[in-house]
């Protein structure tokens, strides 16, 4: 088994993003269940926030690809 620290970094970044996006998805499903009439707004906010979380994770992943 070979590998670099960068690979561990990429894995950690994925864990972080997974937790973040999971929270966003879970909470927005809860919110939609509570208020189905607001589902359009909630979905928009969900995608936007998920994109921000993903952006932070992608910076980490790409850095770990380039610096390995």
């Amino acid at each position: 088994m070979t590998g670099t620290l960068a690979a561990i970094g990429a894995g950690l970044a994925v864990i972080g993003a997974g937790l973040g996006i999971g929270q966003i998805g879970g909470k927005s499903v809860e919110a939609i269940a509570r208020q189905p009439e607001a589902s359009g707004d909630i979905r928009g906010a969900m995608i936007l926030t998920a994109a921000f979380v993903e952006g932070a994770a992608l910076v980490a992943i790409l850095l770990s690809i380039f610096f390995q």
Partner: protein
Amino acid sequence: MHRMILRPFCLLTLLVTGMIAYAQHDDHSGHEQDDHHEEAHHDGEHGDNNGHAHDAECGEHDHQHGPYDPKATAMHHIADANVYTILDFVRIPLPCILYSKETGWDVFMSSKFGPGHHDDGHYAYNGYVLHEGSVMKVIEPGFPAVGKHEVGGFSSDHGADKTQHFVCYQGEPQLLEAKTVWDGGILGGGVTSFYDFSMTKNVVSMILVSLLLFFLFRSAARGYAVREGGAPKGAQSLLEPVVTYIRDEVAIPFIGEKQYMKFLPLLLSMFFFILGLNLWGQVPFLGGTNVTGSLTLTAILAIIVFLVSNFNGNRHYWQHIFWMPGVPVFVKPLLAFIELLSLFIKPLTLMLRLAGNISAGHIAIISFIGLIFIFGNSGESLGGGVVGSVLSTLLTMFMMAIELIVAFVQAFVFTLLSASYIGTAVEEHEHH
């Protein structure tokens, strides 16, 4: 109505077949030889490749003959190339436009390199060679700088801090110039001594997708002129819901009723361009171009968004960046610093998100296909190959379904975030 949609497709088909015809026409010098060469490689017999006797003399050989290397394969398949290869046997040559300070302009078709297996060229032309689809320069002193010369295989030396590539010429390995890397050579990479303005595979894909979009939208626009006020038909029915969705769910909520019309064309162009290229890269057996997954293209798109949002920024926007109202004075410089940073981080993440997601999809698919070779032990084990094929087919199909969603979501997210960045810049503040 059918003719409306059929016509652009016919045109595209004609264009592509024309290119293939040209490829075959231009390639036939030494074509038969190439075939022999390739067959020999496939059989793993290096002895009988006629005319390539010096091939084996160059010590370590090119990596495609060794065990399967998933990382190199993935990187090769997501990279841009100077030849459009479909399924490793149709090779459409593309124009190479190179400029170097010493030798000046060089304009020729990449068929001059005689691209063969794995997009490696069999010839050097004016001191340039084609390695894994990209043009590289031979910098070994004594290598003929002018004319077409036959070369052997390529080899790489994976050193501790950098990889050097060599090409075999008359039995001697010749050093190739390191390719330009994203950081401009700070971390041990390189910057080439020549400028490459070539029309690469990615550029061709962009042109094809733009043409397709142009014809699609022209057909829709004609539809509106012909059936004014009537029910939409054909391309109109395809595009109208998407256009109204972007307008009602992205442009109006983020930019505002008053100013959205000014930015809607930009947002729609970006959405359809990104979506078209995402889907074009998804079509199986069509080259699998990774245009929206290349940082170059996404950087340009992000720079456009950066310029548009900042040039349209109003007084409130700049005030919120440099002198945030409503906070204590000692916090203001700190906030200004953070806001200034975020000004540049916004387009940076925009760039990385799109490129990262699309490249990740391409890498995942090529890795799943590579499972065949990993399980089959590069052709050694038949049973493993069968298991790997079944597994890889299922996983690839699953991944392609996911990627279809990702293609839409990423185009949408890019548009949404652009709208939100433009929206914060042009927003009218009444509350203070």
